[in-house]
């Protein structure tokens, strides 16, 4: 981010013509259907237990929560889109690609740890990284790092609820895990999907 662009101008036409895996979305997938059924059943059970008042109470609470989250979801989507547009494909595949080694995993981990926001930021950004040439290993390191050592959740939720001591020790214990997860991911990935590294560019 701190790097000035002029010495490395990203070819815009390149980014335009590039197909974007993972960015084509069906509005309704099977996961949406599962969750809808789950929600409907749960709401029905709540209604049987607490009546209409109980159902409405939860609805109003969650509607206000939803209203609060929306701007952050927008921020996350924009962040992901900008990042996938401005990151040069070459550079990402070099520093986060399958051949990036331990360094790539460490970069992914550091990136996940400093990424602000919640799932609405982390997942669009991770998806953007995948789209511009990061491999599964580095992206796993990033996602696991965000979820385990990212400061956002720790500061906002874990410290107030679980206490500073527990949180700090928990984070300390978790420090090596993103790198290990990324390494394991890479190790397994090349065995499940054996393919020459050059092919990754088309993915």
């Amino acid at each position: 981010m701190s790097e000035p662009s002029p010495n490395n101008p990203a070819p815009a036409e390149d980014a335009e013509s590039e197909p974007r895996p993972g960015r084509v979305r069906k509005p309704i997938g099977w996961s949406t259907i599962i969750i809808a059924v789950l929600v409907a059943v749960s709401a029905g059970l709540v209604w049987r237990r607490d009546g209409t008042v109980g159902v409405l109470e939860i609805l109003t609470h969650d509607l206000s929560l939803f209203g609060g989250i929306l701007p952050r979801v927008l921020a996350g989507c924009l962040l992901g889109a900008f990042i996938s547009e401005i990151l040069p494909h070459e550079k990402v595949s070099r520093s986060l690609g399958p051949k990036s080694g331990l360094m790539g995993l460490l970069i992914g981990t550091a990136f996940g740890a400093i990424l602000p926001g919640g799932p609405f930021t982390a997942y669009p950004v991770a998806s953007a990284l995948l789209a511009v040439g990061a491999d599964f290993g580095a992206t796993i390191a990033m996602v696991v790092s965000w979820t385990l050592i990212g400061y956002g959740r720790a500061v906002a939720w874990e410290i107030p609820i679980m206490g500073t001591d527990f949180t700090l020790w928990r984070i300390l214990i978790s420090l090596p895990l993103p790198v290990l997860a990324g390494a394991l991911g890479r190790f397994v990935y090349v065995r499940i999907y054996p393919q020459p590294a050059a092919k990754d560019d088309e993915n």
Partner: protein
Amino acid sequence: MSAALLIDILLWGSVFGVGLIAFRRGPPVFKASLREGSMDFINIVPRIALGVIGSGYIAAIIPQEVITGWLGPDSGWLGGATAVVAGAATPGGPVIGFSIGTVALKSGGGVPQVVAYVVAWALFAFQRVILWEIPFMPARFVWFRCAVSVPFPFVAAAIAMVIGKP
């Protein structure tokens, strides 16, 4: 809450930062990514709405006592395995996950088990995976990520046992 405000500022600051970089690459790049991001947002909103509004109901029908009951003081690897299942099965957001962890600690749950629980919750909470992770990322990546993450709550519990903290 000031922590949330700080995070919002950081978040939007990053958006403006990368937006500025995109803008300096030229207005077409900026416009294209703005459109891309807005389309992502529009596509994702119905699913987020369903998830956020619906999760209250899911959380309401799974009593927290059930999950804390699973995290009893009976230590060992079985306790760790239970913690992993409990973490994955915990509905709702961080408030519920961490509150259950705290209750488990206070009611005599072992520290390694609670660490395993919190780590498993962070890695696998089914609701977050289904609601957030799968809509935003390629499903194949998500399943792979989850499968690869299975050992790590146990690793965390093992480290907690070895260092004897917190």
